[in-house]
């Protein structure tokens, strides 16, 4: 089909011409984006197969604003014959299936490779193995016009150590000096969310940033699910029909959509006035449009479920935050699964108090946002999380953002994150998402308030004790003087009664808090 051809030509070309929308608009931004995309692919290659990630990144300056990047992971590896397509063809591997991952189509990694090819005339070198007897090395370029990989060199070597993973290396034009703050922050924040990952980064100055795992526990990987009827558009349905082997509409719906059974399909088709037994390929464009529109309106579909999501979990989130900030207290919460426009999502949030967290002015609060385990470092003030933080009346929780050492963490995992832009920078204020974030933060705030109240009580008890310790000896001395006695009375007995009382109060408040 001419349409298909048009697409395959334009894919690489399109991104080449519009590279700013994917975060490659200038050397500083490109440096950050390349590191991020490669590290994310590496982490995905591990996590989706429950392998604790061990990701090493090295950036080397080669002069004239050219840098060489090398990212090594211990992930599942890329099969021998798929390497050229995985790294050398844009949009390769895009199935119309959904699950939570950092990048949907692995697009960013290939954009990075393309950017290197454009700016530094660099080919990409890939060494990979799935842990078998061989490892294989490729040197590739992308044919931009035809969107095809060009294999410059390939070698297959024995793999006696059964090494498994992928190493990717290429050069690009960048500006690390100015990108450095964001890059380092990216690694730091990534490690907060992944306490089970070893992450290592050596920058062009030779500085080593190392984040060692503190646990072997990992969240369960996301399962692949079919798209939910609420979350598809005309184009996707059109492609699904082209790909399907189902010969009736009922079969087509049941086989290709998430949580659609035969009964639901029959009811829906009645509503859409499309024959149950119609062959999907024979639908005319009017019927197709009606089908897609009805999918959005029909209220008989089951809501999407969350097996396709892989939230971090309260325990791991807490561990990561504790490692980074050593806070006095962390309140964590995970909301139940919800959905917007047919895409399931889960919000996790935490508020940490004290420890290494500094007291910041109210307009510079510490807010850490993550989407599908990616830290979001740009445009905080346009993000829905910030909108929610501004909306909540923190005084109700006895929290003062301007004078307390507080840090906020919000993680949203979704099969499709509602980014406002292609650059994965901030999240749009969808009402469903906003609601979940608001309640997650409020739950945490309640927890923090309870902790602070408990602490305050303990402080009061301690302060009381110190008052007695201060005045009792004086009373003893003055009474000695007044009575004309030689030595002061033994006030320890009285003091012990105060201490016993203090302990009692403390225990009572512990019980109350639980």
């Amino acid at each position, binding site marked *: 089909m001419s349409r298909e051809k048009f697409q395959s030509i334009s894919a690489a070309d399109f991104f080449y011409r519009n590279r700013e929308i994917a975060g490659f608009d200038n050397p500083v931004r490109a440096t950050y984006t390349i590191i991020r995309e490669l590290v994310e692919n590496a982490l995905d290659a591990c996590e989706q197969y429950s392998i604790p990630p061990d990701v090493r990144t090295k950036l080397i300056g080669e002069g004239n604003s050219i840098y060489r990047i090398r990212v090594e992971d211990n992930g599942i590896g890329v099969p021998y014959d798929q390497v050229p397509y995985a790294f050398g063809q844009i949009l390769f591997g895009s199935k119309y299936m959904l699950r939570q991952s950092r990048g949907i189509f692995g697009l960013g990694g290939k954009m990075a490779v393309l950017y290197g090819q454009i700016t530094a005339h660099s080919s990409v070198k890939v060494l990979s193995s799935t842990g078998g007897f061989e490892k294989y090395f490729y040197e590739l370029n992308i044919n931009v016009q035809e969107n095809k990989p060009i294999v410059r060199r390939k070698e297959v070597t024995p793999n006696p150590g059964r090494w498994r993973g992928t190493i990717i290396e290429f050069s690009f034009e960048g500006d690390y000096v100015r990108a450095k703050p964001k890059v380092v922050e990216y690694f730091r924040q990534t490690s907060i969310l992944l306490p089970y990952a070893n992450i290592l980064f050596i920058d062009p100055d030779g500085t080593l940033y190392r984040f060692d795992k503190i646990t072997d526990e990992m969240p369960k990987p996301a399962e692949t699910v079919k798209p939910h009827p609420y979350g598809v558009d005309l184009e996707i349905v059109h492609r699904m029909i082209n790909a399907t082997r189902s010969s009736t509409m009922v079969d087509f719906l049941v086989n290709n959509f998430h949580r659609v059974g035969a009964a639901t399909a029959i009811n829906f088709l009645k509503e859409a006035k499309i024959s149950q037994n119609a062959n999907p390929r024979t639908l005319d464009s009017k019927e197709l449009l009606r089908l897609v529109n009805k999918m959005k309106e029909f209220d008989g579909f089951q809501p999407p479920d969350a097996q396709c999501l892989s939230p971090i979990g309260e325990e791991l989130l807490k561990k990561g935050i504790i490692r980074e900030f050593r806070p006095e207290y962390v309140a964590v919460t995970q909301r139940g699964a919800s959905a917007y426009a047919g895409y399931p999502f889960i919000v996790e949030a935490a508020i940490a108090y004290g420890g290494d967290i500094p007291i910041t002015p109210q307009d510079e609060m510490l807010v850490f946002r993550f989407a599908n385990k990616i830290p979001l470092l740009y445009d905080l003030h346009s993000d829905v999380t910030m909108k929610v933080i501004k909306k909540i009346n923190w005084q109700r929780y006895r929290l003062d953002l301007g004078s307390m050492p507080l840090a906020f963490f919000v993680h949203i995992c979704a099969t499709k994150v509602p980014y406002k832009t292609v650059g994965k920078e901030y999240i749009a204020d969808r009402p469903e998402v906003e609601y979940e974030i608001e309640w997650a933060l409020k739950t945490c705030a309640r927890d923090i308030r309870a902790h602070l109240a408990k602490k305050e009580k303990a402080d009061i008890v301690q302060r009381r004790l110190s008052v007695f310790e201060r005045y009792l000896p004086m009373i003893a001395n003055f*009474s000695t003087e*007044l009575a004309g*006695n030689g030595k002061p*009375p033994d006030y320890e007995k009285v003091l012990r009664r105060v201490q016993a009382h203090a302990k009692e109060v403390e225990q009572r408040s512990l019980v109350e808090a639980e």
Partner: protein
Amino acid sequence: MLRKSNREVLSKLSELGNEIYAEIERGEFPRIRIPSRTTSNIVFDEELGQFVLGDQRSLRSAANIKQIRSLTQLLWVASFAKRLVLEGKSSTLRDLYYHSLNYGIKFREQTESDDTVTDLETLLGEPREGFNIFPKERSAIFGDLEIEYTTPETHKGRRVNLGSNPDGVMVGLSVAQADFLSCKADKVFVIEKNAVFRRFIEERVYDKFNAILIDTAGQAPRLARLLIRRLNQELGLPVYLLTDADPWGMHIAMVIIRGSANAAHLRDLTTVRAKWVGLWATDIKRFNLPSFPLTKLDEERIRLLEEDMRYRDFEWQSELQEFKKTRRRAELEAFSAHGLTAIVDKYLPKKLKMIEEN
């Protein structure tokens, strides 16, 4: 009288110390009960003719976080008092406040340490003069009275005639505590104002009326009230009070006679038999004195005094009514309008006669 109370004070202080000491030894929280000085506990004692404290007690306990500090402060003031009495030294409220800073006793401000001194007065039932803490003195005495100092040690045994200084002799601790040796006067004039006090000396009132003159300089300080009481009780001298004709002046007289509510916790400061000779409200008309209209504040004060238990006697009430009727007030100096000596030559003899006749 004060020397006697010094000994009493010492024994009361060591009794207090012993109680606290024993409580601590027993492992109990030390505590003190003090007669409460809240208005609801200030009652008028008909027999004594003055305000006294009722039966309510307030607690200062070391078991209570809110009270332990004030208990400590009270015990410090007590031990400070004991030292003063033992060493025969004296101190003022201001001085005591500064001393407290040395001992790590934190008084937020002087009013707090002043209150604590009042607490100790209440607890011991002794005025602070009994444990050698004195306010600033401003009253003076003049007359043919021979005294012998008993304090301080340096002046003990020295004698002085209170007529020897034409400015009057300041009524301080030493004068108030002195022994009375001989007295030729047969009455006491207590005057509210220094100007009139001086006029009386210049006009030889002490001679003409055979009187001792005391200048209270406004509301009579406690030592002056003590001295007036001693002159009345120990020497049997009648006491005549001279004040302005306004609610404030008449209250100066009343406090000397029946005491103040502020000192309801103390006895032995009042001179119930003292007589207020004037100026009365009715004197304004009687002696045709230049007068001024009452201010709003004056009228409010009159309303308050009308309801005061100390003023329920007929003569006092009728003076208050007269003020309300005429709405005028006059000062002692007003007599100058009738000539320098009018107050001495005309007024005093007439008023004394009026009072004798009553």
